[in-house]
């Protein structure tokens, strides 16, 4: 397992009228070559902002105030803009949630597909770019690719648009793809198609994929390792099987217990909701941010910081009481 991207102490803040909002708080993780790494969390947990910070695609007021993201020996956060543009889009690509909004409605699909390839000089001639575009469309499962190059985005359905976005992301043969909720806006059967397409392509091309999602089901079905985010911080990182069978953070455990699962016999178990709501990130609670909602919380959880500690092989957790968590029922 060779690391390809090492993120250390990433912190991103957004000034608001109420004060400074720390959207990403001291986030560190390592992405390995050729793996699907899940980042899971609820809205406002900082999972999207982490991705955007890495690609330096933050809203204008937000600032990454601390941290590094080392890719091939250089820190992405400190590369001069020109050098960074060589990396972004070419070596690290991004797939967004809303495919329709990402595609430019006034340009033909073919032009949008070849644009990045020509700009990054991945191909020498427009003809070569076109040939590659056709191949890419075929690869992402768009029928009759030669004809569809002439079409505009509005002539595609939501699922087909997401396939196009994936094709564009793949066009420069990136090393890393950051996918931010790539299937959230889609219907169940289409989500299933796109997810399996992504997994298949990742496997085929050996690219490293960061999959940001709120859906524990998507994580279980696709990722090798997972980071769980809560209130801007990573609270647990583990391989998928450990995370689902022996979670070492009460938040992860709470998430697993409150998601309804399909049962083959149609029998249902009562859900155990996590009480309360996620905290206000302008004035987060002191100590462990999960303590107001945590069943294990005690006095020591209300103060201090809680760095990730090794709790197993490839398994880190920020909870100091992880040993009190019994086995999953």
């Amino acid at each position, binding site marked *: 397992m060779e690391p390809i991207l090492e993120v250390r102490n990433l912190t991103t803040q957004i000034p608001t009228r109420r004060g400074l909002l720390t959207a990403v708080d001291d986030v560190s993780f390592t992405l390995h070559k050729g793996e699907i790494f899940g980042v899971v969390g609820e809205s406002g947990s900082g999972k999207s902002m982490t991705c955007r910070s890495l690609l330096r695609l933050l809203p204008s007021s937000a600032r990454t105030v601390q941290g590094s993201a080392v890719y091939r020996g250089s820190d992405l956060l400190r590369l001069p803009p020109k050098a960074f543009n060589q990396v972004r889009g070419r070596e690290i690509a991004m797939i967004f949630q809303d495919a329709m909004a990402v595609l430019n409605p006034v340009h033909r699909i073919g032009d949008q597909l070849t644009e990045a390839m020509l700009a990054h000089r991945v191909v020498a001639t427009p003809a070569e770019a076109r040939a590659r575009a056709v191949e890419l469309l075929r690869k992402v499962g768009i029928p009759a690719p030669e004809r569809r190059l002439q079409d505009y985005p509005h002539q595609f359905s939501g699922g087909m648009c997401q396939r196009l976005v994936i094709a564009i992301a793949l066009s420069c043969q990136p090393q890393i793809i950051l996918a931010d909720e790539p299937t959230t806006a889609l219907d169940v059967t289409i989500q*299933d198609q796109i997810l399996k397409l992504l997994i298949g392509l990742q496997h085929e091309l050996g690219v490293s994929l960061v999959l940001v999602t709120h859906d*524990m089901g998507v994580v279980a079905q696709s990722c090798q390792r997972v980071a769980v985010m809560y209130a801007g911080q990573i609270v647990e990182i583990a391989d998928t099987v450990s995370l689902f069978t022996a979670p070492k953070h009460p938040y992860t455990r709470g998430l697993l217990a409150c998601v309804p699962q399909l049962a*083959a016999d149609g029998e249902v178990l009562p859900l155990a909701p996590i009480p309360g709501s996620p905290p206000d990130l302008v004035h987060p609670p002191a100590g462990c941010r999960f303590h107001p909602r945590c069943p294990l919380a005690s006095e020591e959880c209300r103060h201090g910081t809680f760095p990730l500690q090794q709790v197993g092989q490839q398994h880190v957790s920020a909870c100091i009481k992880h040993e009190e968590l019994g086995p999953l029922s």
Partner: protein
Amino acid sequence: MNDLRAVPPILEVKGLSKRYVMNAGFWQQLTRRPPDLLHAVDDVSLRIAPGEIFGLVGESGSGKSTLGRCLLRLVEPTAGQVLFRGVDILQLPRAQMQGMRRKLQIIFQDPYSSLNPRMTVRQMLGEVLAVHRLCPPHRVEARVRELLHLVGLPADAVDRFPRHFSGGQRQRIGIARALAMEPEFIVADEPVSAVDVSIQAQVLNLLIDLKAQLGLTMLFIAHDLSVVQHISTRVGVMYMGKLVEMAPRRLLFSQPRHPYTQGLLLAAPQPDPFHHSTRVALEGEPPSPLHPPAGCRFHTRCPLASDRCRQAPPPLQEIGEGHWVACHHHDLAVWPPPAATPWAA
């Protein structure tokens, strides 16, 4: 399920259809082209017994939301009947319909746009109580607090505006507002789709509690099968305006017989890392609702489709105790699928 039939339904839908006329613009009139018709809901019939939570599941464009709104006449259906305790509410004149609305309520999907941003919780609930004279003026304050307690909101919520609440709390306000009317029947239109995972369970449990506490009957609309499975006593599956399968919960999830229901079940990603497949559950996309395919509307994506499916639309027929399926080949739809089912290809 025999007992279910013996009880007269609280709500019965007969042959309900909603058609939208598209492109009926100037040019269309000039060229005398017939306007395009969009069949949002097409000849749907169902009965809901008192105390049931009927789950209605389908993807976007399946017509599930339109059907829900037709039941309250928030959308006027094009054809069919909606019988509430035997009275066809579609025939009711306006004034009587206003009275009927007390008994039929709706909980909306979006907790952000379904609350008036300029009214406090007290004003919102108080208005409902006052307009319908649901309690004497001096009792309004107490009743508002009672409602808030019922949905698990703190008493000091009364003087706040919607923007002061989180998504889950707003959804509770929406539920309190519907409950203020003391309804007998509630349409819950994707009430948990817009709230966060950790909050979703809170809202679902609240609805289950309220059902038990107040004896509510509910039409629960959702796109998420596991949510529907969790809350419903009976489930209907819609595809392109048609009801394709309907059965008591256990039957539907343990022995789904329509290939579309089976595809939906296989497609939903499960939070179980030991249980996954690389096969796509259901290929293709729904065709344009403006030009639905002839015969069975699902035949373009169906692994079992035959010539018969391309010509004759299958009727919704009862194949077992309370289990209704609209599929010519329901006896071929094996469940659970063996390793090499047709839709592996």
